[in-house]
């Protein structure tokens, strides 16, 4: 039954839907098991309407998860037509090409029924602790990267499909943890479904359609207004990415065409997919392109199906941003997270106030350290440490901040309790940021030592790291300087990333993330700020004198 919504009633109903998404998010954080979910918050929830359109998301999401899940909702109906779904069903998949682009991300989605009709879908993506496979980006095909789960019914009418649980348990290194997380993922969807039903009951609505359509329409209009503010024209950008020392570089190209209130993004000219696990599926590319656009034109709008309607996106099949099966994709962060910066770079001439300089924060440094304690018990820890955000038009970049993904670091004290490893240093790095009228945020040093006393691990510790920017540092904008590249060193020797690296007792591994690029001419930086940075050891006397032109840096 179509209903018209008054602007007041609509806002009231909409704030309820948004709060349901936030409730779903809070519920996961409290009930999940693995550190990557509970501490690092590497998961996302989403609410979808009966047709599979994105209805609402919580305040905190990882853009790639949400984009992947939203894309998957468009094709899951081909496998399991929505009209055949029953109460208590739950569909699972981690297919990178259907969903968010690598196997550890497992999506579960559950239909929500009200008054006997399908009214919504509640979904979530968890980055699970393990899906088997090789721990490294030195893979040649996705088959090496772990268990692939095509869209399957994990629950049918409330009954678990135990065969799937058994297959998953057999294929992962920490079966108990993964199975527990999957179960808490399902439990949280039940919780969310209950909330949606309660809302419809209370509002005496048969379904969400008319409410959703009106919100999509209004969101679309607002995004169009944002795009309209950009002058019509073609804006291009190009970026060279390094995959570590002695590795070939990767070229990304973006062409943005603005016509009135519509935007067309084309990645033609981007380099081909590679035989390393850093390729991006198109869903992933789309998610980060959308993130880049939205953060410039409409950062405070709700994200839903209406927001994407004014956008068209293309990337040639077989390029590294639209990789085809069976390309390896495990470490797609290394490439795909650069896309927002391509957008910023392309639009910097017309949106100089909105864009920010390149960030040492991206790509995410995703590290896993695993091994056995002296007594033989296994351990796995995933410390997280970010580089600095790029400088903005009116303020310095923030030091050590995740971007564009959004996860949390974990305390050193917790990591040392859960493993025999020692962290010797976690500190901001002097001169790691690009200089400018506003400087970049600083990167950090994270130094781990493998003990060689009675707590020395029984076997070498495996360090698996996906990183980036270890050759080409983040660029500055408008006359600012670039930040120096990041580095990884074992006992003083530079190493690359991607391949598993074995650490022996007594070894010391230093991870140094990059700072952000600067914004504007460093000579125009407020002198008091230069002196303050010098006093605080954020810049060296040499940088104060040579780059910032401070007369008396003593």
């Amino acid at each position, binding site marked *: 039954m179509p209903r018209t919504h008054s602007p007041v009633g609509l806002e009231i109903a909409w704030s309820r839907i948004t709060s349901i998404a936030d409730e779903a998010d809070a*519920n996961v954080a409290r009930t999940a098991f693995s550190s990557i979910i509970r501490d690092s918050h590497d998961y996302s929830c989403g609410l979808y309407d009966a047709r599979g359109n994105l209805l609402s998301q919580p305040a905190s999401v990882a853009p790639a998860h949400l984009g992947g899940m939203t894309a998957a909702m468009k094709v899951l109906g081909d496998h399991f037509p929505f009209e055949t779904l029953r109460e208590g069903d739950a569909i699972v998949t981690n297919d990178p090409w259907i969903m968010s682009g690598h196997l550890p991300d497992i999506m579960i989605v559950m239909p929500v029924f009200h008054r006997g009709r399908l009214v919504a879908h509640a979904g979530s993506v968890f980055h699970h602790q393990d899906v088997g496979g090789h721990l490294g980006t030195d893979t040649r095909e996705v088959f090496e990267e772990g268990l692939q789960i095509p869209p399957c019914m994990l629950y049918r009418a409330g009954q678990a499909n135990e065969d799937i649980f058994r297959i998953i348990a057999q294929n992962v290194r920490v079966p108990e943890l993964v199975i527990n997380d999957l179960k808490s993922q399902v439990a949280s969807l039940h919780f969310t479904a209950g909330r949606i039903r309660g809302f419809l009951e209370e509002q005496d609505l048969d379904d969400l359609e008319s409410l959703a359509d009106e919100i999509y329409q209004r969101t679309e209009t607002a995004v169009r207004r944002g795009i309209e503010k950009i002058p019509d024209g073609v804006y291009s950008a190009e970026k060279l990415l390094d995959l570590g020392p002695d590795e070939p570089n990767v070229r990304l190209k973006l062409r943005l065409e603005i016509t009135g209130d519509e935007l067309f993004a084309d990645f033609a000219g981007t380099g081909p997919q590679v035989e390393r696990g850093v390729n991006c599926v198109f869903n992933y590319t789309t998610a980060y392109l959308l993130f880049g656009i939205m953060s410039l034109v409409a950062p405070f709008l709700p994200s839903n199906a209406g927001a994407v309607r004014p956008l068209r996106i293309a990337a040639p099949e077989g390029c590294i941003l639209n990789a085809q099966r069976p390309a390896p994709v495990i470490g797609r962060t290394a490439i795909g997270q650069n896309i927002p910066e391509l957008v910023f770079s392309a639009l910097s001439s017309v949106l100089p106030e909105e864009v920010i300089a390149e960030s040492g924060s991206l790509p995410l440094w995703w590290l896993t350290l695993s091994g056995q304690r002296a007594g033989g018990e296994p351990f796995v820890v995933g410390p*997280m440490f970010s580089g600095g955000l790029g400088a903005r038009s009116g303020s310095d970049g923030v030091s050590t901040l*995740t971007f564009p993904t959004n996860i949390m670091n974990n305390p050193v004290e917790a990591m040392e*309790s859960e493993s025999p490893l020692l962290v010797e240093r976690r500190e901001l790095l002097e001169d790691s940021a690009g200089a400018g009228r506003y400087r970049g945020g600083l990167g950090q040093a994270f130094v781990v030592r493998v003990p060689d006393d009675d707590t020395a691990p029984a076997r070498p510790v495996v360090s698996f790291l996906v990183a980036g920017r270890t050759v080409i540092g983040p660029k500055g904008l408008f006359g600012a300087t670039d930040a120096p590249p990041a580095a990884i060193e074992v006992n003083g020797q530079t190493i690359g990333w991607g391949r598993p690296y074995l650490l022996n007792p007594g070894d010391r591994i230093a991870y140094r993330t990059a700072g952000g690029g600067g914004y504007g001419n460093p000579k125009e930086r407020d002198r008091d700020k230069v002196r303050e940075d010098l006093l605080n050891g954020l810049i060296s006397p040499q940088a104060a004198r040579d780059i910032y032109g401070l007369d008396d840096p003593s």
Partner: protein
Amino acid sequence: MSGRFLLGCDIGGTFTDFVLLDQENDELHLVKCPTTAEDPSNGVMDGIAAYEQLFPEFLAETERVHHGTTLVINAVIERSGAKTALITTKGFRDVIEIGSERRYDVYDLQQQYPSPLVPRHLRFGVTERIRSDGMVLTPLDLRELEAIARHVADIGVESVAVCLLHSYRDAAHEEQVEERLAALLPEVELSISAQVLPEINEYARASTTVVNAYTKPLMRGYLERLERLFTEKGFGGQILIMLSSGGATSIDTAVRFPVRVIESGPVGGVTLCQGIKSRSGLGSAIAFDMGGTTAKVCLLQGDEVPLANDYEVARVHRFKRGSGIPIKASCVDLLEIGTGGGSIAGIGPLGLLQVGPQSAGATPGPACYGFGGTKPTTTDADLLLGYLDPSYFLGGTMPLDPDASREALRAHVADQLGMTPELAAWGVHDLANESMAAATRVFAAERGADPTKMTLIATGGAGPVHARGLAAKLGVGRIIVPPAAGVASAIGFLAAPVSFDLVQTHKRALSEANLAHLESLFAEQSRKIAETLEAAGGEVARFDRSVDVRYIGQGHEIRIALPDKPLAELGKAGLLTLFQQSYERLYGSALSGNEFEIVNLRLTGRGPETASPLRPRQASGDPMIKGERPAFCPNEQDFVRHIVVDRYAIDPGVRIEGPAIIEERESTTVVDARMTAEVDELGLLHLQFV
């Protein structure tokens, strides 16, 4: 010492509220004075002077003063604390600047973060290392420490925070640092993390210790001055300082741990509501306070005020978690919502009505104040709807201008949405209620609470105006409005017993826990608490023990109260049952095949219960019905006649049928057509849906 009077004194942002309880005549005397920000003790003494008009030299006959102050939180917000240094394990001095690394807004590229309270040049690493199991890997380098001490003295540092890795496990190195610094820097205040917060997680511990250090000199100066001023007036009783956790403590303890009093502002109101809940025999209640800029909600489900362990202060965006400075310390488990009388209404980016979180504050204030505000606020909507009397706001001391409200609503809301200013006003009022209801639902769900089974207790200037709408949205059937709801906090202070709590991280799987050892750790905590309470001039009436527990592998602990009997008697089986039941209550079901782990031990000691500040009262004898006026009725979606009732003239037991508006000096209660209202012998106003 016993005496005739008890004094409650609550320093707020704008006003300092006083409540004097005359125990001989069972009378409460209320006074409001402007807060004097430059030295809040001046405002306090203004209040004392006002009471001296009534009762000369009353301080000499006063038994206790319960004092709450925003001094600490303001110092953090305004950055007016002491020049503070931080000493950490070498390599970790940036712990408070690196933070959690998480963004509080996914899309906002321009987001700002609070700069650390201790700038980097005042943060020092010292060579030393203790392992996670407590073993010393590297002894403390005393020579390095002495060099830091000399440097710190040279540059005029007033306060030092010390936070070394794993000190929650073994505090030996922090104690050595404390001993050396105390000897070398006798004039400098010290805050030691293992004393402030012996809990795992170096960022939260360092951040909390730094806030403590940053505010300590200020707190000492203020409280010592206040004590002196009181003594000069012949006061021989006890001054108690309100804690964020709802209890009260001595000046000495407040000076050592200012971080524990940082969020004491809302505590009085919640304490009052908790007292009302127990006296009225309610199973559970929602304490709801709505003031000028925010609303606050606390769910009262047990015999004690509920506590949380972490919160944030000085947020860049007041309602965005992650944009402030984190603190871990016991505080009342409170939800703060960006909806208050001053919340500004307007049209959002989607062309829809929005209310808050921006607030017009006290200046320029709502349009109807006539202080220059032109934007419509919740108070403007309430006025236009007829709920507030333009000539009886704050007892008539502040005339309101309804035409200014109508114009503001027309220009900023009604014209855009194509409706009358009056209907737009209802939209604003209703949306404000919806925002509060939505936030309350999420908050309740997280705590396994069901609002429909609870009673709403409304305080604050705007609380009783919005209670009816909030209750209807939450499915709450019953509302209580205490007398003088606008100064509930100061009244509630008088009911706060002396208390102190401690936490100790002690991670053990339940199966591996040694109950005798846990018993000894609790005994050690109880000894320390008894010392603290005795220093506050009190004794311990009872101890409450609780543990933070999680399934092994989970990151979020739940706090579980232990029954008052020896652990040995309870046994591990008893503990397991208790943990499972608590988990089920919160999350619906316990997990099979997973083991519990104890993370922290918590102990709270409390002094004897204090007398209730609510005393029997009689109707004033004035005519009960003051008149009538049209006000908006949500059922009719139109204005209908409401009788206007003088709250102080209602005889206990008389039933008032809605629609009615019940007025008192500090607040106004709306009773809609579906409700009845009654006053009991304590002066509590009871509203019920028919």
